[in-house]
């Protein structure tokens, strides 16, 4: 397939940056919603070569870093129990709890396992019928379907020693909370492409029109992020506030119906505490 490495081409990146420079006439603050986009901005040096008029605001926080401290403590408590195998994604292990993190618990002998996929935890439960296997399930809307699928697999196979400690966060309520903060001066958003892969773009139309902010659903390669910024800047300069889809090679307007159905089957929406922010209504 064509158009994979092309999204990392530095010459093309420079062309779009030139276009941003030609377009921008005044200062704008743009928030990229996903940490994956922040990573791309920093790792590829994009942040250093944007015109000085553009300020990128990183937030509102990735699912790992906003996981409330009491759930980190709960995960450590579970992990220290002799009959428990606690599994999670690797980046959860370094997040500090009240006294220690999961990596330190592991060093003290807790059975903590780093997995690539929650589906692997179901296999571990099957292989260890005398243990309770708990998957510490964090994520945005992107990851929630896989976490839900692990429970469906366990149920289908009659596995009763598998459970999850869930800490999912939803993006649109967080965007709303950020806009409503009186100190916030964000003019436009790069929405998280992989969240929209699941949820579609529908949730963003009311946000864009109610708060008069352009929202561009954006991918993660350097060209994606720079083009997303250009699309937001063009809208800001024109005074429009539409939802646009930069990441159309992946994101369908309606999202992924199968994935949404499994989220609805397994989880229900509730208020959620975001570490460092506080409680956001209906955001988890």
């Amino acid at each position: 397939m064509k158009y994979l490495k092309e999204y990392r081409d530095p010459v093309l990146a420079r062309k779009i940056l030139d276009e941003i420079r030609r377009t921008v006439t005044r200062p704008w603050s743009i928030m990229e919603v996903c940490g994956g986009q922040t990573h791309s901005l920093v790792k590829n040096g994009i942040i250093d070569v944007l015109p000085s008029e553009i300020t990128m605001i990183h937030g509102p926080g990735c699912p790992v870093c906003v996981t409330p401290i009491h759930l980190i403590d709960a995960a450590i408590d579970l992990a220290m129990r002799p009959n428990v195998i606690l599994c999670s994604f690797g980046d959860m292990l370094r997040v500090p709890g009240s006294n220690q993190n999961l990596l330190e618990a592991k060093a003290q002998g807790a059975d903590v396992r780093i997995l690539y996929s929650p589906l692997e935890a179901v296999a571990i439960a099957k292989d260890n019928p005398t243990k309770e296997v708990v998957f510490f399930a964090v994520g945005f809307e992107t990851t929630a379907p896989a976490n839900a699928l692990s429970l469906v697999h366990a149920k289908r196979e009659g596995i009763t020693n598998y459970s999850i400690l869930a800490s999912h966060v939803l993006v649109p309520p967080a965007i709303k909370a950020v806009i409503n903060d009186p100190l916030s001066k964000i003019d436009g958003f790069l929405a998280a492409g992989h969240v929209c892969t699941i949820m579609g773009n529908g949730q963003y139309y009311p946000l864009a029109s109610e708060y008069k902010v352009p929202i561009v659903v954006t991918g993660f390669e350097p060209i994606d992020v720079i083009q997303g910024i250009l699309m937001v800047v063009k809208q800001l300069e024109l005074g429009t506030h539409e939802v646009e889809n930069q990441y159309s090679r992946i994101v369908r307007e309606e999202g992924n119906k199968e994935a949404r159905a499994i989220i609805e089957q397994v989880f229900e929406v509730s208020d959620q505490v975001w570490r460092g922010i506080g409680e956001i209504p209906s955001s988890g």
Partner: protein
Amino acid sequence: MKSASLEMLPTAEIGDYVLVHVGVAISKVDEEEAKKTFDYLREIGEVGELEDIDEYLPKTE
């Protein structure tokens, strides 16, 4: 080699490129849509100006 669940992508076929997230395929990559970004860039590369580029931008439906 890692395995990936296709349960969320029942229309996936052999030869498709898919986006896999934590062991689950969640979307097919659409090559036609991917091409649009580069049509757009080719245009601004040739013209070096703003005019007539909007039609090449990926559009929301």
